[in-house]
């Protein structure tokens, strides 16, 4: 029910092979979204870890690396958004 609402698959007139293709597409979409979510969690952990690392060893490059972490987090958000909207 939830998946039907989410992906707009509610046409009972679809033939069996077409349903199988749509089910496979749904399965792939779910896999990609879960992958994107895990990647977002990973990117968040990286950002936190960079924060700990840069307070442990303070270098002139600490700011740049922190920005790198945030850019990576934004990238992960973008990827998840892409998987949710484009697939």
């Amino acid at each position, binding site marked *: 029910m939830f998946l039907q609402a989410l992906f707009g698959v509610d046409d009972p007139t679809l033939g069996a092979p077409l349903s199988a293709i749509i089910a496979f597409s749904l399965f792939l979409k779910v896999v990609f979204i879960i992958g*994107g979510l895990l*990647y977002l969690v990973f990117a968040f952990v990286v950002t936190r*870890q960079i924060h*700990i690392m840069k307070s*442990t*060893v*303070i270098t002139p490059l600490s700011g740049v690396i922190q920005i790198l972490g945030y850019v990576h987090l934004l990238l992960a958000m973008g990827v998840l958004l892409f998987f949710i909207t484009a697939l």
Partner: protein
Amino acid sequence: MPDIYDASSEPQPEKKTNHHRVNDYSRVMRNEKSSNNALKSFVAKPTKIHFDSQGQNERVLLLMRRHPVTQLKWILIAIVLLFMPILFLSVGMLNFLPPTFQLATLVMWYVLIISFSLESFLNWFYNVYIITDERVIDVDFHNLIYKNISSAKIDVIEDISSTAGGILASIFNYGTVRIQTSAAVVEFEYDDVPQPAKVTEFLNELLLEEEKEKFENRVD
């Protein structure tokens, strides 16, 4: 009343920082230029590099990390992975997927390469070995979630040895420096650091200076 003696009129001796002092007793450091390039793997006498448990009068004299050559492995893996999709697409390996899913697979692939490279770089950049005028320190971060910092005072060092083995280590002059101590952490291993012989020599100079200071304090 005229002053008999005014200390302020006396020429003041030049205030020596710890970096100047190290040049007095260390031949190794006299020959090294002060640097703040945090991307180098052998940073001598940095003035803008610090660590969290650093004492107020403690100065970082040497910061080291693994030689850049030892990082070639993950860099080469990342480059190979970067070009893999060309191979996949040329043989039509993803043709069973709809075009949007093919694109998503490529996005996922490249994002994983970015994260692999970022994690490897961070591991290299923040796993550092620090020698201060008081301590030797080993900062370890494993897999982004585990942090370990070990340190020992210079005066508890009992034995220092360096080993360099392998073709690359001989060509690029890097190796492992082992520091035996009588502290809680018995052995420090500075893996694949550049110029291990120089590091050993510097540690010996620090040890000698520490013993000299102890002796002078006892005499005073």
